[in-house]
């Protein structure tokens, strides 16, 4: 059954490639809820849109694709960098932000998630960016509200824009993802970043290994199509990319792991372990980093580390996502105008 689906998808991918060629397709979905259900062409469309934005952003030109539009950041879970990144992305596109920070879920307020959504909808914004501790909440919202919904992280499920910015960063540093080996290290089982990355990296042709304490690894790695190991060292020499995940102290307890010190001792990316990595291999981390836990301070600041590039790229990727779902026609026209401008520049 699973094999059939894979075969079908590969076939679809080939036809698409033939049709669209290098001109670049556009994202075809109304929302961005997760990576699992996206086809490769949609992922590539978002990444190439992000690339297209970069020169204009660097020249500090305005890209007014969201002018007159309001993006609601509906955050049911604390977040600084993701929310800021979406805010900056919105502003660079000339749009306005509404921030709705609810530290508690709708349930504890006695309001249902649907009620919250309909209230926000009644204010007539143009897009909802949602983060929620409950997996599936963006799906539920997307069925309720009549506007694009972008998932900024839901429970342990998905964090699609993080995976996109990671892929963007890897492509920027290493070229294509095809054939690359990515090791994801840390709490995989409870990580939406890992889940979205696994889907995306595999769809773009990379192979993935996950590593960490058995209590924090997914129980069925084969279904995710990844290799799984409790030991880090043997994985390092073949890795093109090592992605360290935050060990979330608040979520850990002694039933899953004896101590953070023990994690660091056995699974931390120490200076010695980082030396096992091959030349040119890079280190990613979605942040915020716990220096001395997931990776040694020297490693975090070493040339292999591309952590701050990830942050910059996050804005470009989120611009691409917002423009694609809120103003797809405008985006097409803008891309067209850029192409002709480039031609005349030449």
């Amino acid at each position, binding site marked *: 059954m699973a094999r059939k689906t894979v075969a079908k998808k590969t076939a679809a991918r080939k036809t698409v490639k033939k049709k669209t060629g290098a001109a670049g397709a556009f994202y075809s979905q109304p929302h961005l809820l997760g990576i699992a259900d996206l086809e490769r062409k949609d992922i590539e469309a978002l990444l190439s849109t992000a690339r297209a934005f970069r020169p204009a952003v660097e020249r500090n030109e305005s890209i007014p694709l969201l002018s007159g539009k309001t993006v609601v950041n509906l955050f049911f879970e604390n977040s600084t960098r993701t929310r800021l990144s979406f805010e900056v992305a919105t502003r660079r596109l000339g749009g306005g932000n509404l921030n709705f920070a609810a530290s508690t879920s709708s349930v504890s307020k006695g309001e249902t998630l649907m009620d919250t959504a309909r209230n926000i909808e009644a204010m007539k914004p143009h897009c909802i960016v949602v983060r929620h501790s*409950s997996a*599936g909440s963006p799906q539920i919202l997307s069925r309720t509200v009549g506007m694009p919904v972008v998932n900024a992280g839901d429970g*342990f*499920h998905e964090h699609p824009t993080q995976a996109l910015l990671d892929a963007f960063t890897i492509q920027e540093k290493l070229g294509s993802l095809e054939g690359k080996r990515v090791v994801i290290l840390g709490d995989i*089982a409870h990580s939406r970043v890992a889940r979205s990355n696994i889907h995306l990296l595999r769809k773009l042709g990379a192979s993935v290994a996950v590593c960490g304490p058995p209590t924090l690894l997914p*129980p*069925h790695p084969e279904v*995710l199509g990844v290799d799984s190991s409790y030991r880090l060292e043997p994985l390092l020499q073949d890795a093109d990319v090592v992605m360290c995940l935050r060990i979330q102290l608040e979520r850990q307890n002694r039933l899953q792991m004896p101590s953070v010190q023990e994690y660091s001792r056995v699974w931390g990316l120490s200076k010695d372990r980082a030396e096992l990595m091959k030349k040119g291999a890079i280190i990613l981390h979605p942040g915020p980093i716990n220096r001395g836990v997931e990776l040694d301070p020297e490693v975090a600041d070493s040339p292999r580390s591309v952590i701050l590039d990830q942050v910059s790229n996050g804005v470009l990727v989120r611009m691409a996502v917002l423009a694609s779902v809120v103003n797809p026609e405008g985006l097409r026209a803008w891309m067209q105008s850029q192409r002709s401008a480039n031609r005349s520049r030449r």
Partner: protein
Amino acid sequence: MNFGTHKGSLLIRGGRIIDPSQQLDHVGDLLIEDGKIAAIDRSGRIPANRAQEIIDARGMWVMPGLIDVHVHLREPGLEYKETIETGTRAAVAGGFTSVACMANTQPVNDTPYVTAFIREKAKASAVCRVFPVGAVTRGLKGEELAEIGGMVSEGAMALSDDGMPVMNSYLMRKAMDYAKAFGVPIISHAEDLNLVGQGAMNEGALSNELGLRGNPAAAEEILVAREVALCRLTRCPVHIAHISTEVGLEHVRRAKEDGLPVTAEASPHHLTLDETELRSYDTNYKMAPPLRSERDVEALQNALAEGLVDLVATDHAPHGVVDKAVEFDQAANGIIGLQTAVPVTLELVHDGIVSLNRWIEALTIKPAQLLNLPYGTLRKGRPADVTLIDPDRRWTLGPEHVASKSHNSPWMGHEFRGWVAATIIGGKQVR
């Protein structure tokens, strides 16, 4: 409502009369007199002038009134979800003539006074027979025994902490020992709550993919095994509620082979739906125990077919919008089931997986035997609880059909084949 005192006579003519309790299956006529089964005979042998009323049942199945040993009527305390009146209206619309209601009301049915309240409220407002299930422990807290003797004397027919299973094995053993004095079975919602943790769906590859916390099959397997072990120790009748796992079924099989008084029920949803429904994050697929794998569903269907699963019970669990229109992992567990049990499980008969005789047995005489009720049979002289089903009528479930106060059903909009045509309790047609 008082049942069984209905004066008069009713002749049900020309239906296929099926009663597994007496190996009956033939086309014929059934006569009810003064609330009791008076006669069953071949077509035309009972003179029409013996009856004041006649029902033409040609093309229909005539069977004992259905019995559901596992429903939540929510009264007292949670009347925004359901009341004894609305819940029993849903029951008769679904072909049920008797229901047993779980103890997780507010206050909990853990004293004779609450049991008596339910009994009196049912007498005043119920449209079918209602049998309270008393709590095993005070407040369902699993700390000390509830007043079992007093509840039984007020009409409790079984004991259960249902969704809050007794985790302390010593206390459960004492409850089983104690219950033997009163001749009532203990119904166990068999899940190890520590292992369930915050699990929101069946644990496996799919929970991993969907990012929902898993509730492993092992949580059920462990508690089924414990209940069997305690039954072996105490010989108290134990009934496993809504069993859902292949391995759990094997524990029940072993118990039965050893002659222990262990029985099991399966719910219509566990018999027909699997975990892949969760892909939608639709909270109407959130249950406890959770929907399991395709393999478990198949094992459950086979177990029902062979009688390893004795009976079907709905676990009718009405919830309001505030309980269900929320984030998946925070949504309440359970669905309404009284009006969909017949058509949903009838699909297994239509598909040739479960025999017609076994299906009816699982909804009539088996639940009657569990609760020691004189119903679930069409034997002459017994109270005339009868259900008529039109097995081929197609219909689509819509809000207009729902008699329950709550609408939390995953089958809304689903087309069914099989329709409850009439429900008769104590000789009186209530639907």
